[in-house]
């Protein structure tokens, strides 16, 4: 299973703008490359990333073959309430990874 690294501040004040970072291990094989005997290497990429904050989607990104290996996402949201952030990456060959992070909002 692919590894992911999530960076969410564990604590925030209500109304604060908080940075969120998510890094995942993936080759992002484009499908345009050929091996040493000229055979095409099949495409194997992550095509969708989503982040939900207590069930509500706050970030969605479509990924394409031009995205580098081990995609890194960095974005911001407003801390509204304590709870859970859920990150999901999905793509070719049934790839699906979900990670969660907790946040306490005071």
């Amino acid at each position: 299973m692919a590894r992911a690294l999530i960076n969410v501040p564990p604590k925030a004040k209500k109304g604060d703008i908080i940075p969120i970072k998510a890094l995942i291990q993936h080759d992002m094989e484009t499908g345009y490359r050929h091996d040493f005997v000229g055979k095409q290497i099949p495409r194997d990429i992550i095509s969708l990333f989503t982040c939900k904050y207590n069930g509500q989607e706050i970030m969605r990104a479509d990924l394409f073959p031009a995205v580098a290996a081990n995609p890194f996402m960095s974005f911001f949201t407003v801390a509204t309430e304590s709870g859970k952030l859920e990150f999901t990456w999905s793509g070719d060959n049934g790839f699906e990874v979900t990670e969660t992070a907790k946040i306490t909002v005071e």
Partner: protein
Amino acid sequence: MSIGPLKLISALLLLGAIPGVAAEIPLAERKSGYEFMGRETRSMQDDDTANPGMLWVLDGATAWNRKTGTENKSCADCHGDAASSMKGVAARYPAFNEARGRPVNLEQQINICRTDRQKAPALAFESKELLALSAHVTRQSRDMPIAPPNDERIKPFVEAGRATFFRRQGQLNFSCSQCHDDNWNGRLAGAPITQAHPVGYPIYRLEWQNLGSLQRRLRNCMTGMRTEPYDFGSSDIVDLELYLKWRARDMKVEAPAVRP
């Protein structure tokens, strides 16, 4: 990306324009490759949740505890917790190996452990698992000074590595020293040349989109010099690695570093 003809021409111009002095860099003037990088790449390395090398470190932690081979032993069964037992170990490799009668680097030592202790097949150089293990072990030495062993037996090999570093070779008739001692402040096309101190290996190189060892990087340079790269694990390349570690003695380990 390979070094194209334009880059080589600019390198020739650069080296032609500045008279070669072929002297080692004074200890106080040494700089890590980190100091040549831009702000974004530095912040990627500094933040463990943004540094892709940490993904291999985590993989290595899993591999460290995985039982393997006919002995059904894990690294942890002999060495215990890597955080304490491996602290400072990578900082002193390559080290002398009695059985082989010569220095071996960290990747070779991991494979010696596998074949001799775990009775498992050796891992291929640059394979994901070997890089993960060496990243995990090297991470335990982060911020510690590079400390080549004070061992009389390795001295002839350091000298052999030094001779390689200063030897002109390949179609372009270059030595490592001409770029990395004499012209480290210059640029090869757009990229800084740097002083070639191996403080961060295994590194996550953005160009590779992957983690790679020092030997992979050395072979890259050799291809750019149009000379035949030494084989992974060959005595020539380990001696060169040993000399580079000696040249970078007392500089801080940054592994896993991020480099452009």
